[in-house]
Protein backbone atom coordinates (compact mmCIF):
# COMPACT_ATOMS: atom_id res chain seq x y z
CA UNK A 1 0.00 0.00 0.00
CA UNK A 2 1.95 3.01 -1.15
CA UNK A 3 1.39 6.27 -2.93
CA UNK A 4 4.42 7.89 -4.52
CA UNK A 5 4.16 11.42 -5.80
CA UNK A 6 6.82 13.49 -7.59
CA UNK A 7 5.26 16.19 -9.72
CA UNK A 8 5.88 19.66 -11.10
CA UNK A 9 3.42 22.16 -12.43
CA UNK A 10 3.66 25.81 -13.37
CA UNK A 11 0.50 27.91 -13.17
CA UNK A 12 1.10 31.56 -14.05
CA UNK A 13 3.78 32.61 -11.55
CA UNK A 14 3.07 29.84 -9.06
CA UNK A 15 5.32 26.83 -9.28
CA UNK A 16 4.40 23.53 -7.67
CA UNK A 17 7.19 20.97 -7.21
CA UNK A 18 6.40 18.32 -4.62
CA UNK A 19 7.77 14.90 -3.87
CA UNK A 20 6.63 12.56 -1.10
CA UNK A 21 5.55 9.04 -0.29
CA UNK A 22 2.57 7.78 1.69
CA UNK A 23 2.45 4.18 2.82
CA UNK A 24 -0.33 2.77 4.95
CA UNK A 25 -0.58 5.25 7.78
CA UNK A 26 -2.46 8.49 7.01
CA UNK A 27 -0.26 11.32 5.78
CA UNK A 28 -1.17 14.90 6.58
CA UNK A 29 -0.56 17.45 3.82
CA UNK A 30 -0.16 20.65 5.76
CA UNK A 31 0.46 24.19 4.63
CA UNK A 32 -0.94 27.70 4.52
CA UNK A 33 -3.53 28.51 1.86
CA UNK A 34 -1.91 29.00 -1.52
CA UNK A 35 0.92 26.58 -0.74
CA UNK A 36 -0.24 24.03 -3.32
CA UNK A 37 -2.04 21.48 -1.12
CA UNK A 38 -5.24 21.35 -3.12
CA UNK A 39 -3.42 21.35 -6.46
CA UNK A 40 -1.34 18.38 -5.32
CA UNK A 41 -4.47 16.54 -4.30
CA UNK A 42 -6.18 17.30 -7.60
CA UNK A 43 -3.17 16.07 -9.53
CA UNK A 44 -3.28 12.75 -7.67
CA UNK A 45 -7.00 12.41 -8.32
CA UNK A 46 -6.45 13.08 -12.04
CA UNK A 47 -8.37 16.35 -12.06
CA UNK A 48 -5.25 18.37 -12.84
CA UNK A 49 -2.42 17.37 -15.17
CA UNK A 50 1.12 18.05 -13.93
CA UNK A 51 3.69 19.36 -16.40
CA UNK A 52 6.23 16.74 -15.39
CA UNK A 53 6.65 13.89 -12.98
CA UNK A 54 5.26 10.60 -11.82
CA UNK A 55 2.43 9.36 -9.63
CA UNK A 56 2.41 5.69 -8.63
CA UNK A 57 -0.27 4.04 -6.51
CA UNK A 58 0.34 0.49 -5.24
CA UNK A 59 2.69 -0.11 -8.16
CA UNK A 60 0.17 1.17 -10.71
CA UNK A 61 1.51 4.13 -12.70
CA UNK A 62 -1.24 6.78 -12.74
CA UNK A 63 0.85 9.48 -14.31
CA UNK A 64 4.25 9.50 -15.93
CA UNK A 65 5.27 12.38 -18.17
CA UNK A 66 8.25 10.45 -19.63
CA UNK A 67 6.17 7.42 -20.57
CA UNK A 68 3.23 9.66 -21.55
CA UNK A 69 0.91 7.88 -19.15
CA UNK A 70 -2.04 9.83 -17.77
CA UNK A 71 -4.75 7.55 -16.42
CA UNK A 72 -8.10 9.38 -16.46
CA UNK A 73 -9.67 10.22 -13.10
CA UNK A 74 -12.40 7.59 -13.49
CA UNK A 75 -9.88 4.74 -13.76
CA UNK A 76 -7.51 5.82 -10.98
CA UNK A 77 -9.46 4.29 -8.07
CA UNK A 78 -8.67 7.36 -6.02
CA UNK A 79 -11.51 8.42 -3.73
CA UNK A 80 -11.88 12.11 -2.96
CA UNK A 81 -13.72 13.75 -0.11
CA UNK A 82 -14.20 17.27 -1.45
CA UNK A 83 -14.11 20.29 0.81
CA UNK A 84 -17.68 21.14 -0.18
CA UNK A 85 -18.61 17.40 -0.18
CA UNK A 86 -20.00 17.70 -3.75
CA UNK A 87 -23.01 15.48 -3.11
CA UNK A 88 -25.33 15.08 -6.09
CA UNK A 89 -28.34 17.23 -5.15
CA UNK A 90 -30.78 15.30 -7.35
CA UNK A 91 -30.06 11.94 -5.73
CA UNK A 92 -30.97 10.57 -2.31
CA UNK A 93 -28.28 9.63 0.18
CA UNK A 94 -28.54 5.97 -0.84
CA UNK A 95 -28.35 6.89 -4.55
CA UNK A 96 -25.32 9.07 -3.88
CA UNK A 97 -23.53 6.20 -2.16
CA UNK A 98 -24.53 3.78 -4.92
CA UNK A 99 -23.26 6.16 -7.65
CA UNK A 100 -19.79 4.67 -7.94
CA UNK A 101 -20.78 1.00 -7.69
CA UNK A 102 -23.29 0.82 -10.51
CA UNK A 103 -21.28 -1.73 -12.44
CA UNK A 104 -21.68 -4.32 -9.65
CA UNK A 105 -24.49 -6.88 -9.53
CA UNK A 106 -27.58 -5.55 -7.80
CA UNK A 107 -27.12 -7.75 -4.68
CA UNK A 108 -23.49 -6.75 -4.34
CA UNK A 109 -24.42 -3.12 -4.87
CA UNK A 110 -27.16 -3.21 -2.23
CA UNK A 111 -24.78 -4.92 0.16
CA UNK A 112 -22.09 -2.25 -0.31
CA UNK A 113 -24.55 0.60 0.07
CA UNK A 114 -26.05 -0.93 3.22
CA UNK A 115 -22.57 -1.49 4.60
CA UNK A 116 -21.54 2.14 4.00
CA UNK A 117 -24.85 3.50 5.28
CA UNK A 118 -24.27 1.56 8.50
CA UNK A 119 -20.58 2.27 9.03
CA UNK A 120 -21.07 5.96 8.20
CA UNK A 121 -23.98 6.14 10.69
CA UNK A 122 -26.25 7.55 7.98
CA UNK A 123 -28.68 4.62 7.51
CA UNK A 124 -31.56 6.70 8.88
CA UNK A 125 -30.92 9.29 6.16
CA UNK A 126 -30.94 6.84 3.22
CA UNK A 127 -33.97 8.30 1.43
CA UNK A 128 -33.24 11.97 2.19
CA UNK A 129 -31.87 14.48 -0.29
CA UNK A 130 -28.55 16.29 0.43
CA UNK A 131 -30.20 19.72 0.69
CA UNK A 132 -32.03 18.56 3.81
CA UNK A 133 -28.90 17.30 5.60
CA UNK A 134 -26.73 19.17 8.08
CA UNK A 135 -23.07 19.83 7.25
CA UNK A 136 -21.91 16.95 9.42
CA UNK A 137 -24.38 14.54 7.84
CA UNK A 138 -23.32 15.62 4.36
CA UNK A 139 -19.70 15.01 5.26
CA UNK A 140 -20.47 11.49 6.47
CA UNK A 141 -22.44 10.72 3.32
CA UNK A 142 -19.63 12.04 1.11
CA UNK A 143 -17.11 9.86 2.94
CA UNK A 144 -19.40 6.81 2.65
CA UNK A 145 -19.83 7.50 -1.08
CA UNK A 146 -16.07 7.66 -1.61
CA UNK A 147 -15.44 4.49 0.42
CA UNK A 148 -18.19 2.51 -1.31
CA UNK A 149 -16.01 2.21 -4.42
CA UNK A 150 -13.21 0.71 -2.24
CA UNK A 151 -10.61 3.14 -3.58
CA UNK A 152 -6.92 2.33 -3.46
CA UNK A 153 -6.24 5.78 -2.02
CA UNK A 154 -8.41 8.24 -0.17
CA UNK A 155 -7.85 11.99 -0.45
CA UNK A 156 -9.50 14.22 2.13
CA UNK A 157 -9.56 17.93 1.26
CA UNK A 158 -10.04 19.91 4.49
CA UNK A 159 -12.99 17.73 5.44
CA UNK A 160 -13.83 19.65 8.62
CA UNK A 161 -13.35 23.21 7.44
CA UNK A 162 -17.07 23.84 6.88
CA UNK A 163 -18.20 22.49 10.25
CA UNK A 164 -18.88 23.88 13.72
CA UNK A 165 -16.32 23.10 16.41
CA UNK A 166 -18.56 20.79 18.42
CA UNK A 167 -19.34 18.75 15.30
CA UNK A 168 -15.69 18.60 14.31
CA UNK A 169 -14.62 16.66 17.37
CA UNK A 170 -17.23 13.95 16.93
CA UNK A 171 -16.65 13.66 13.18
CA UNK A 172 -12.91 13.68 13.59
CA UNK A 173 -13.08 10.77 16.01
CA UNK A 174 -15.33 8.91 13.58
CA UNK A 175 -12.94 9.62 10.72
CA UNK A 176 -9.98 8.33 12.73
CA UNK A 177 -11.87 5.10 13.39
CA UNK A 178 -12.80 4.78 9.73
CA UNK A 179 -9.22 5.32 8.61
CA UNK A 180 -7.96 2.60 10.94
CA UNK A 181 -10.14 0.01 9.19
CA UNK A 182 -9.52 1.46 5.72
CA UNK A 183 -6.72 -0.42 4.01
CA UNK A 184 -5.50 2.06 1.40
CA UNK A 185 -3.27 5.12 1.46
CA UNK A 186 -4.81 8.23 2.99
CA UNK A 187 -3.83 11.81 2.32
CA UNK A 188 -5.35 14.36 4.65
CA UNK A 189 -5.13 17.96 3.47
CA UNK A 190 -5.46 20.58 6.16
CA UNK A 191 -4.27 23.95 7.31
CA UNK A 192 -5.21 23.10 10.89
CA UNK A 193 -2.12 21.60 12.45
CA UNK A 194 -3.78 20.17 15.55
CA UNK A 195 -6.32 18.35 13.43
CA UNK A 196 -3.63 16.95 11.14
CA UNK A 197 -1.54 15.98 14.17
CA UNK A 198 -4.40 13.98 15.68
CA UNK A 199 -5.43 12.23 12.45
CA UNK A 200 -2.05 11.53 10.85
CA UNK A 201 1.18 9.91 11.92
CA UNK A 202 3.33 11.41 9.18
CA UNK A 203 3.26 14.94 7.86
CA UNK A 204 4.26 16.65 4.63
CA UNK A 205 4.52 20.41 5.05
CA UNK A 206 4.16 22.53 1.91
CA UNK A 207 5.34 26.11 1.58
CA UNK A 208 5.31 28.18 -1.61
CA UNK A 209 4.63 25.13 -3.77
CA UNK A 210 7.38 22.87 -2.48
CA UNK A 211 7.94 20.42 0.36
CA UNK A 212 9.43 22.24 3.35
CA UNK A 213 9.39 19.21 5.65
CA UNK A 214 8.27 15.60 5.69
CA UNK A 215 8.49 12.84 8.24
CA UNK A 216 7.03 11.61 11.53
CA UNK A 217 4.88 14.32 13.08
CA UNK A 218 6.68 14.35 16.46
CA UNK A 219 9.99 14.95 14.73
CA UNK A 220 8.61 17.82 12.65
CA UNK A 221 7.08 19.48 15.69
CA UNK A 222 10.19 19.09 17.82
CA UNK A 223 12.71 20.26 15.24
CA UNK A 224 11.04 22.13 12.40
CA UNK A 225 13.63 22.24 9.61
CA UNK A 226 12.60 25.68 8.31
CA UNK A 227 10.93 28.91 9.33
CA UNK A 228 7.78 28.19 7.28
CA UNK A 229 7.49 24.77 8.87
CA UNK A 230 7.80 26.19 12.37
CA UNK A 231 5.09 28.68 11.48
CA UNK A 232 2.76 26.00 10.09
CA UNK A 233 3.26 23.93 13.23
CA UNK A 234 1.94 26.84 15.26
CA UNK A 235 5.11 28.55 16.47
CA UNK A 236 4.65 32.31 16.75
CA UNK A 237 7.85 33.62 18.35
CA UNK A 238 10.74 34.22 15.97
CA UNK A 239 13.80 36.41 16.04
CA UNK A 240 16.64 36.78 13.59
CA UNK A 241 19.66 35.10 15.14
CA UNK A 242 23.41 35.37 15.06
CA UNK A 243 25.77 32.88 16.69
CA UNK A 244 28.12 33.77 19.54
CA UNK A 245 30.81 31.53 20.89
CA UNK A 246 30.25 28.87 23.61
CA UNK A 247 26.70 27.89 22.68
CA UNK A 248 25.21 31.35 22.86
CA UNK A 249 23.06 33.02 20.26
CA UNK A 250 22.18 36.65 19.87
CA UNK A 251 18.43 37.17 19.26
CA UNK A 252 18.59 40.32 17.18
CA UNK A 253 14.88 41.21 17.17
CA UNK A 254 14.43 40.48 20.86
CA UNK A 255 17.56 42.41 21.86
CA UNK A 256 19.05 39.71 24.06
CA UNK A 257 21.62 36.95 24.18
CA UNK A 258 20.44 33.40 24.81
CA UNK A 259 22.00 30.09 25.72
CA UNK A 260 20.63 27.21 23.66
CA UNK A 261 20.83 23.48 24.36
CA UNK A 262 20.44 22.42 20.73
CA UNK A 263 23.54 21.29 18.87
CA UNK A 264 23.09 23.14 15.58
CA UNK A 265 25.81 22.67 12.97
CA UNK A 266 24.55 25.18 10.36
CA UNK A 267 24.69 28.96 10.80
CA UNK A 268 21.36 29.90 12.42
CA UNK A 269 18.97 32.22 10.57
CA UNK A 270 16.30 32.44 13.25
CA UNK A 271 15.75 31.47 16.85
CA UNK A 272 12.27 30.47 17.97
CA UNK A 273 10.22 29.34 20.94
CA UNK A 274 6.60 28.19 21.19
CA UNK A 275 4.21 30.46 23.09
CA UNK A 276 3.27 27.70 25.53
CA UNK A 277 6.97 27.22 26.42
CA UNK A 278 7.53 30.85 27.41
CA UNK A 279 7.47 31.07 31.22
CA UNK A 280 6.32 34.33 32.86
CA UNK A 281 6.34 35.08 36.60
CA UNK A 282 6.78 37.94 39.09
CA UNK A 283 10.16 39.70 39.03
CA UNK A 284 12.19 39.10 42.18
CA UNK A 285 15.11 41.16 43.43
CA UNK A 286 17.46 38.17 43.12
CA UNK A 287 16.62 37.87 39.39
CA UNK A 288 18.86 40.81 38.55
CA UNK A 289 21.92 38.63 39.26
CA UNK A 290 20.70 35.69 37.23
CA UNK A 291 21.14 36.94 33.67
CA UNK A 292 21.00 33.64 31.79
CA UNK A 293 17.83 33.38 29.63
CA UNK A 294 15.89 35.42 32.17
CA UNK A 295 14.79 38.98 31.36
CA UNK A 296 12.53 41.70 32.69
CA UNK A 297 9.46 42.14 30.47
CA UNK A 298 6.40 44.38 30.14
CA UNK A 299 2.91 43.56 28.93
CA UNK A 300 1.82 45.16 25.63
CA UNK A 301 -1.54 43.47 25.05
CA UNK A 302 -3.56 40.38 25.90
CA UNK A 303 -6.04 38.10 24.13
CA UNK A 304 -8.22 35.94 26.34
CA UNK A 305 -9.49 32.48 25.39
CA UNK A 306 -11.74 30.47 27.75
CA UNK A 307 -8.89 28.62 29.47
CA UNK A 308 -5.77 30.48 28.40
CA UNK A 309 -4.50 33.99 27.97
CA UNK A 310 -2.10 35.04 25.24
CA UNK A 311 0.17 37.79 26.55
CA UNK A 312 2.18 39.98 24.16
CA UNK A 313 5.44 40.82 25.95
CA UNK A 314 8.28 43.24 25.38
CA UNK A 315 11.74 42.44 26.74
CA UNK A 316 13.96 45.07 28.39
CA UNK A 317 11.86 48.24 28.15
CA UNK A 318 8.14 49.11 28.47
CA UNK A 319 6.22 49.03 25.14
CA UNK A 320 5.36 52.24 23.29
CA UNK A 321 1.99 50.90 22.13
CA UNK A 322 -0.03 47.64 22.21
CA UNK A 323 1.59 46.32 19.02
CA UNK A 324 5.12 46.94 20.29
CA UNK A 325 6.08 43.48 21.57
CA UNK A 326 8.72 40.77 21.13
CA UNK A 327 7.13 37.53 22.28
CA UNK A 328 3.81 35.90 22.85
CA UNK A 329 3.35 33.76 25.94
CA UNK A 330 0.46 31.40 26.54
CA UNK A 331 -0.54 31.40 30.19
CA UNK A 332 -3.17 29.20 31.87
CA UNK A 333 -6.12 31.15 33.21
CA UNK A 334 -5.50 30.44 36.92
CA UNK A 335 -1.82 31.44 36.65
CA UNK A 336 -2.86 34.57 34.83
CA UNK A 337 -5.29 35.53 37.59
CA UNK A 338 -2.47 35.63 40.13
CA UNK A 339 0.03 37.26 37.76
CA UNK A 340 -2.12 40.06 36.38
CA UNK A 341 -2.07 42.19 39.57
CA UNK A 342 1.68 41.85 40.16
CA UNK A 343 3.51 45.13 39.34
CA UNK A 344 5.62 45.08 36.16
CA UNK A 345 8.27 44.32 35.02
CA UNK A 346 7.64 40.60 35.13
CA UNK A 347 10.29 37.95 34.56
CA UNK A 348 10.26 36.04 31.27
CA UNK A 349 12.27 32.85 31.08
CA UNK A 350 13.26 31.25 27.77
CA UNK A 351 14.50 27.80 28.74
CA UNK A 352 17.56 26.67 26.72
CA UNK A 353 16.02 23.29 25.87
CA UNK A 354 12.82 24.95 24.62
CA UNK A 355 14.56 27.34 22.25
CA UNK A 356 15.27 26.02 18.77
CA UNK A 357 17.27 27.32 15.84
CA UNK A 358 16.24 27.47 12.21
CA UNK A 359 18.53 27.69 9.20
CA UNK A 360 18.36 30.62 6.82
Amino acid at each position, binding site marked *: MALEVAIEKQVDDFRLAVEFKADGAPVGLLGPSGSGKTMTLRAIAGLETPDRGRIVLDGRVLFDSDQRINV*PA*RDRRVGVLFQSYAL*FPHMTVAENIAFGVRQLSSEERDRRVAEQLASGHVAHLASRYPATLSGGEQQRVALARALATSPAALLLDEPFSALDTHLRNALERQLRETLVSYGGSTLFVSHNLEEAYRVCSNLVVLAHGSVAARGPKEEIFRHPPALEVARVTGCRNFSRACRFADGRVEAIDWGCTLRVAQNFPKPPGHIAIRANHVRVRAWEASDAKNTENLFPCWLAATAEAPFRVTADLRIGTPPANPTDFHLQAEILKHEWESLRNVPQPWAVELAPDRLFLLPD
Partner: protein
Amino acid sequence: MNWSAVVLSLRLAVSVAAILLVVGMPIAYWVTFSRWRWKFLVEAIVALPLVLPPTVLGYYILVGLGPRHFAGKLWQSWFGHTLPFTFGGLLAASVLYSLPFAVQPIAAGFDGVDRRLIEASWTLGASRLSTFFRVLLPLSMAGVVTGLVLSFAHTIGEFGVVLMVGGNIPGVTRTVSIDIYDQTQAANYDVANKTALVLLLFSFLVLAFIYGTSRRALGLWRRT
Protein backbone atom coordinates in the same frame (compact mmCIF):
# COMPACT_ATOMS: atom_id res chain seq x y z
CA MET B 1 -59.86 28.23 -40.32
CA ASN B 2 -57.03 26.57 -42.19
CA TRP B 3 -56.36 23.36 -40.29
CA SER B 4 -53.69 22.11 -42.71
CA ALA B 5 -51.60 25.21 -41.89
CA VAL B 6 -52.00 24.58 -38.16
CA VAL B 7 -50.97 20.94 -38.53
CA LEU B 8 -48.01 21.94 -40.69
CA SER B 9 -46.83 24.52 -38.17
CA LEU B 10 -47.05 22.01 -35.33
CA ARG B 11 -45.27 19.34 -37.33
CA LEU B 12 -42.52 21.79 -38.16
CA ALA B 13 -42.15 23.10 -34.61
CA VAL B 14 -42.05 19.63 -33.03
CA SER B 15 -39.50 18.45 -35.61
CA VAL B 16 -37.32 21.52 -35.08
CA ALA B 17 -37.40 21.11 -31.30
CA ALA B 18 -36.55 17.41 -31.60
CA ILE B 19 -33.66 18.02 -34.00
CA LEU B 20 -32.33 20.86 -31.86
CA LEU B 21 -32.44 18.66 -28.78
CA VAL B 22 -30.07 16.26 -30.51
CA VAL B 23 -27.94 18.86 -32.30
CA GLY B 24 -28.08 21.64 -29.71
CA MET B 25 -26.85 19.65 -26.71
CA PRO B 26 -23.46 18.64 -28.15
CA ILE B 27 -22.92 22.21 -29.36
CA ALA B 28 -23.92 23.60 -25.96
CA TYR B 29 -21.64 21.07 -24.25
CA TRP B 30 -18.74 22.09 -26.45
CA VAL B 31 -19.41 25.81 -25.97
CA THR B 32 -19.52 25.32 -22.19
CA PHE B 33 -16.51 23.09 -21.68
CA SER B 34 -14.11 23.78 -24.56
CA ARG B 35 -10.99 25.75 -23.70
CA TRP B 36 -10.19 26.49 -27.35
CA ARG B 37 -9.08 30.09 -27.63
CA TRP B 38 -11.12 30.82 -30.76
CA LYS B 39 -14.31 29.45 -29.19
CA PHE B 40 -15.90 32.89 -29.24
CA LEU B 41 -15.99 32.74 -33.05
CA VAL B 42 -18.21 29.65 -32.92
CA GLU B 43 -20.37 31.29 -30.27
CA ALA B 44 -20.76 34.35 -32.52
CA ILE B 45 -21.81 32.18 -35.47
CA VAL B 46 -24.35 30.29 -33.38
CA ALA B 47 -25.79 33.59 -32.15
CA LEU B 48 -26.02 35.19 -35.62
CA PRO B 49 -29.74 34.39 -36.16
CA LEU B 50 -30.50 36.52 -33.11
CA VAL B 51 -29.35 39.69 -34.83
CA LEU B 52 -29.76 39.03 -38.57
CA PRO B 53 -33.02 40.04 -40.23
CA PRO B 54 -34.85 36.81 -41.17
CA THR B 55 -34.71 37.86 -44.81
CA VAL B 56 -30.92 37.94 -44.82
CA LEU B 57 -30.69 34.52 -43.21
CA GLY B 58 -33.45 33.24 -45.50
CA TYR B 59 -31.61 34.57 -48.52
CA TYR B 60 -28.38 32.77 -47.67
CA ILE B 61 -30.16 29.54 -46.85
CA LEU B 62 -32.15 29.77 -50.07
CA VAL B 63 -29.03 30.33 -52.15
CA GLY B 64 -26.93 27.84 -50.17
CA LEU B 65 -29.48 25.07 -50.46
CA GLY B 66 -30.20 25.86 -54.08
CA PRO B 67 -28.92 23.70 -56.95
CA ARG B 68 -25.96 25.97 -57.73
CA HIS B 69 -24.17 25.52 -54.44
CA PHE B 70 -22.34 22.64 -52.83
CA ALA B 71 -24.85 21.75 -50.08
CA GLY B 72 -27.73 22.01 -52.51
CA LYS B 73 -25.95 19.91 -55.14
CA LEU B 74 -25.09 17.25 -52.59
CA TRP B 75 -28.69 17.08 -51.44
CA GLN B 76 -29.95 16.90 -55.01
CA SER B 77 -27.57 14.08 -55.94
CA TRP B 78 -28.72 12.07 -52.90
CA PHE B 79 -32.46 12.72 -52.94
CA GLY B 80 -33.15 13.77 -56.50
CA HIS B 81 -34.73 17.14 -55.71
CA THR B 82 -33.62 20.48 -54.31
CA LEU B 83 -34.46 21.62 -50.79
CA PRO B 84 -36.02 25.07 -51.20
CA PHE B 85 -39.83 25.16 -51.37
CA THR B 86 -40.14 21.74 -49.70
CA PHE B 87 -40.90 20.79 -46.08
CA GLY B 88 -37.32 19.52 -45.73
CA GLY B 89 -35.94 22.88 -46.79
CA LEU B 90 -38.24 24.63 -44.37
CA LEU B 91 -37.06 22.31 -41.61
CA ALA B 92 -33.37 22.89 -42.35
CA ALA B 93 -33.87 26.66 -42.40
CA SER B 94 -35.93 26.62 -39.20
CA VAL B 95 -33.32 24.54 -37.37
CA LEU B 96 -30.60 27.04 -38.30
CA TYR B 97 -32.80 29.98 -37.44
CA SER B 98 -33.72 28.62 -34.00
CA LEU B 99 -30.26 27.28 -33.13
CA PRO B 100 -29.33 30.03 -30.64
CA PHE B 101 -32.71 29.70 -28.92
CA ALA B 102 -31.83 26.10 -28.09
CA VAL B 103 -28.06 26.33 -27.60
CA GLN B 104 -27.92 29.37 -25.33
CA PRO B 105 -30.33 28.23 -22.59
CA ILE B 106 -28.88 24.70 -22.66
CA ALA B 107 -25.34 26.07 -22.41
CA ALA B 108 -26.43 28.34 -19.56
CA GLY B 109 -27.91 25.29 -17.86
CA PHE B 110 -24.67 23.31 -18.25
CA ASP B 111 -22.68 26.29 -17.06
CA GLY B 112 -24.77 26.52 -13.91
CA VAL B 113 -23.82 23.03 -12.77
CA ASP B 114 -21.12 23.02 -10.09
CA ARG B 115 -17.89 21.70 -11.67
CA ARG B 116 -17.04 19.87 -8.48
CA LEU B 117 -20.07 17.62 -9.00
CA ILE B 118 -18.74 16.68 -12.41
CA GLU B 119 -15.29 16.02 -10.96
CA ALA B 120 -16.81 14.02 -8.12
CA SER B 121 -18.58 11.87 -10.71
CA TRP B 122 -15.28 11.20 -12.50
CA THR B 123 -13.47 10.25 -9.31
CA LEU B 124 -16.32 7.81 -8.59
CA GLY B 125 -15.48 6.01 -11.82
CA ALA B 126 -18.10 7.46 -14.17
CA SER B 127 -17.13 8.10 -17.80
CA ARG B 128 -17.74 11.45 -19.46
CA LEU B 129 -20.85 10.11 -21.20
CA SER B 130 -22.19 8.58 -18.00
CA THR B 131 -21.45 11.81 -16.13
CA PHE B 132 -23.37 13.71 -18.79
CA PHE B 133 -26.52 11.62 -18.45
CA ARG B 134 -26.42 11.03 -14.68
CA VAL B 135 -25.15 14.37 -13.38
CA LEU B 136 -24.95 17.17 -15.95
CA LEU B 137 -28.24 16.62 -17.78
CA PRO B 138 -30.52 16.13 -14.73
CA LEU B 139 -29.04 19.20 -13.06
CA SER B 140 -29.44 21.41 -16.13
CA MET B 141 -32.93 20.17 -17.02
CA ALA B 142 -34.39 23.66 -16.57
CA GLY B 143 -32.02 25.01 -19.25
CA VAL B 144 -32.75 22.12 -21.61
CA VAL B 145 -36.52 22.50 -21.22
CA THR B 146 -36.24 26.24 -21.76
CA GLY B 147 -34.18 25.65 -24.88
CA LEU B 148 -36.76 23.22 -26.25
CA VAL B 149 -39.72 25.44 -25.45
CA LEU B 150 -38.05 28.48 -26.97
CA SER B 151 -37.13 26.71 -30.20
CA PHE B 152 -40.65 25.30 -30.44
CA ALA B 153 -42.27 28.68 -29.84
CA HIS B 154 -39.82 30.49 -32.07
CA THR B 155 -40.55 28.09 -34.93
CA ILE B 156 -44.32 28.48 -34.55
CA GLY B 157 -43.89 32.23 -34.74
CA GLU B 158 -41.36 32.53 -37.55
CA PHE B 159 -42.36 34.26 -40.73
CA GLY B 160 -39.53 35.79 -42.74
CA VAL B 161 -37.33 32.75 -43.13
CA VAL B 162 -40.32 30.54 -43.93
CA LEU B 163 -41.45 32.88 -46.65
CA MET B 164 -37.96 33.16 -48.16
CA VAL B 165 -37.09 29.46 -48.13
CA GLY B 166 -40.46 27.75 -48.19
CA GLY B 167 -42.51 30.11 -50.23
CA ASN B 168 -46.23 29.76 -49.72
CA ILE B 169 -47.32 26.32 -50.95
CA PRO B 170 -50.56 25.14 -49.29
CA GLY B 171 -50.06 21.94 -47.27
CA VAL B 172 -46.31 21.93 -47.94
CA THR B 173 -44.85 25.17 -46.69
CA ARG B 174 -47.80 27.40 -45.80
CA THR B 175 -47.52 27.65 -42.02
CA VAL B 176 -50.00 29.34 -39.69
CA SER B 177 -48.15 32.63 -39.56
CA ILE B 178 -48.14 32.86 -43.37
CA ASP B 179 -51.75 31.74 -43.56
CA ILE B 180 -52.76 34.52 -41.19
CA TYR B 181 -50.83 36.99 -43.32
CA ASP B 182 -52.58 35.69 -46.47
CA GLN B 183 -56.02 35.86 -44.91
CA THR B 184 -55.38 39.36 -43.65
CA GLN B 185 -54.17 40.46 -47.10
CA ALA B 186 -57.33 39.00 -48.60
CA ALA B 187 -59.41 40.87 -45.96
CA ASN B 188 -60.69 37.56 -44.49
CA TYR B 189 -60.45 39.01 -40.98
CA ASP B 190 -62.83 36.46 -39.56
CA VAL B 191 -60.65 33.49 -40.58
CA ALA B 192 -57.43 35.30 -39.67
CA ASN B 193 -58.87 36.10 -36.27
CA LYS B 194 -59.86 32.48 -35.56
CA THR B 195 -56.53 31.04 -36.67
CA ALA B 196 -54.61 33.64 -34.68
CA LEU B 197 -56.67 32.85 -31.59
CA VAL B 198 -56.15 29.08 -31.93
CA LEU B 199 -52.40 29.65 -32.31
CA LEU B 200 -52.32 31.95 -29.32
CA LEU B 201 -54.24 29.58 -27.04
CA PHE B 202 -52.31 26.53 -28.13
CA SER B 203 -48.94 28.21 -27.63
CA PHE B 204 -49.97 29.44 -24.23
CA LEU B 205 -51.16 26.01 -23.12
CA VAL B 206 -48.01 24.24 -24.30
CA LEU B 207 -45.75 26.76 -22.58
CA ALA B 208 -47.79 26.67 -19.37
CA PHE B 209 -47.78 22.87 -19.34
CA ILE B 210 -44.05 22.54 -19.90
CA TYR B 211 -43.05 25.24 -17.44
CA GLY B 212 -45.48 23.88 -14.85
CA THR B 213 -44.43 20.25 -15.08
CA SER B 214 -40.72 20.92 -15.35
CA ARG B 215 -40.82 23.26 -12.38
CA ARG B 216 -42.47 20.55 -10.29
CA ALA B 217 -40.14 17.82 -11.53
CA LEU B 218 -37.09 19.98 -10.82
CA GLY B 219 -38.38 21.14 -7.46
CA LEU B 220 -38.74 17.63 -6.03
CA TRP B 221 -35.23 17.23 -4.69
CA ARG B 222 -35.07 20.76 -3.40
CA ARG B 223 -38.08 20.40 -1.13
CA THR B 224 -37.98 17.12 0.74
